[in-house]
């Protein structure tokens, strides 16, 4: 068996949730499916299945995809067989909110193992914020008062931080790495990390200035490397930002 391509696109922030009128990141994910009318299922769990969020998803994807959503707060009204529904998708799109609540609810409903199955079957997993953090081994969550280290699904063996550059996340990420957190990646709002298997293959951005970083511990220091980023708004290669290394 050649095996399906296992893919995750992890947004630091952005897409329809945060960049109304800028469809670049969402279009990028839809483009990866290679089908003109992909099936995209939205999981708004991390927001508590907020109605306004579900409506915004449909408004954004109505004309671009065969869109659906799964609500875990109102299961009696949703799709009867969540597993077969999710396995039939081209993209599973996870919204932002609380990653701790998200993981708790998914585990309670067995969604974590269904998502693993979907991932291995080649369904593209994407999301922003909590919907990015969830795919990694560990998340740097800034959701509560302090910035916490949260064990997540571990489909990717790295750590992850989102909305990077925001508040104390950078300092907290560095601290956690020195405490033994696995090496990982941070993305700013508007930047997205595309993984095939465990490997980061590309960083794309919906804003020319958005960046992503690779972070790893070297002795008593953290090496933070700014990653080459392709701005999705222009075709010319001038927009590739050269790789710069800086010790922090």
């Amino acid at each position, binding site marked *: 068996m050649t095996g399906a391509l296992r893919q995750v696109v992890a947004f630091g922030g952005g897409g329809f949730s945060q960049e109304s009128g800028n469809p670049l990141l969402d279009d990028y994910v839809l483009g990866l499916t290679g089908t003109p009318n992909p099936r995209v299922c939205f999981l708004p769990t*991390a927001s508590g299945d907020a109605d306004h969020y579900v409506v915004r998803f449909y408004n954004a994807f109505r004309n671009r995809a065969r869109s659906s959503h799964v609500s875990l707060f109102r*299961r009696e009204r949703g799709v009867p067989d969540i597993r077969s529904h999710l396995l039939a998708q081209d993209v599973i799109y996870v919204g932002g909110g609380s990653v701790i609540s998200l993981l708790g609810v998914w585990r309670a409903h067995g969604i974590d193992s269904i998502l693993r199955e979907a991932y291995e079957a080649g369904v593209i997993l994407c999301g922003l914020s909590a919907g990015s953090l969830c795919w990694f081994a560990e998340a740097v969550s800034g959701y509560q008062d302090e910035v916490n280290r949260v064990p997540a699904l571990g489909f990717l063996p790295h750590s992850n931080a989102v909305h990077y550059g925001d508040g104390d996340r950078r300092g907290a990420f560095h601290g956690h790495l020195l405490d033994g957190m696995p090496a990982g990646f941070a993305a700013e709002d508007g930047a997205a990390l595309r993984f095939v298997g465990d490997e980061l293959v590309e960083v794309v951005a919906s804003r020319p200035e958005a960046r992503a970083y690779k972070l790893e511990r070297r002795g008593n220091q953290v090496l933070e490397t700014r990653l080459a980023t392709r701005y999705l708004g222009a075709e010319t290669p001038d927009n590739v930002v050269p790789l710069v290394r800086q010790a922090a």
Partner: protein
Amino acid sequence: MTARRRLLALGGHDFDRRAGNDAITDLIVELAESPRPKVCLLPTASGDPEDQIARFRRAISDRDAVPHVISLFRLGENPVDLREELLNQDVIYAGGGSMVNLIAIWRAHGLDEILRECWREGILIVGQSAGAMCWFQGGITSSQGDPAVAGGFGVLPGSICVHYLSEPVRRRSFLRAIASGELEPGLGLEDQTGALFEDAELAEAISAREGAAVWEVTPEGAGGREVELESRQLEDSRPPINGTRADILELRQTLATRASRRRASRRRPGRLD
């Protein structure tokens, strides 16, 4: 002195003006036994919807009490020390929704332990629907679609089934689960009724809607035995918005009397019915 541990489990309640709901909201504020009590809503089980929060704030403010809301889904926008915040309340009200999600989320945030501490410290715990069942050994949830048994935190022994009689499928699952021993014996709570526990003992059953009752359910043979408990009747202080007006009730009564007279006059002698 140890604090009195009190928990009010409600079979169905909302902070709106439907019959019985106002009276229950009055009772909650009264049970706080404090001037301008602080009442905190945890709307976790339904995903913290804005409309529920707005109704709660209005209803509590109207009663000279201080509303407070902890939204676990929006802690990023409004970070708080959960333990400190909750221990500072007079009443904590857990809203309804998905019992499975409620339990999973509270456990993930460590809130179950904090709330148990609040209960031990004498803060009145109130819960409706999923927010009522979660404190007990178990209940019947429709969180996964069809009604099914779900385990609770077990702060109190016994089981609870909410929306009793208004959701017959839920009641049937409850009776089956009690008969089979899957759930401990417990209470069936109809909408707008409640059971007040002091420590692990049922102190009082209340009903705020005419005809609505609290049922004690125990196993009996292959089924469950339901006994209606005597309830303290609560009166709405204001006319409910879905209440039936007195003149309409009178008209209904007149029509029913006339119809029964007609039936009686048509009845042939000797017929059994």
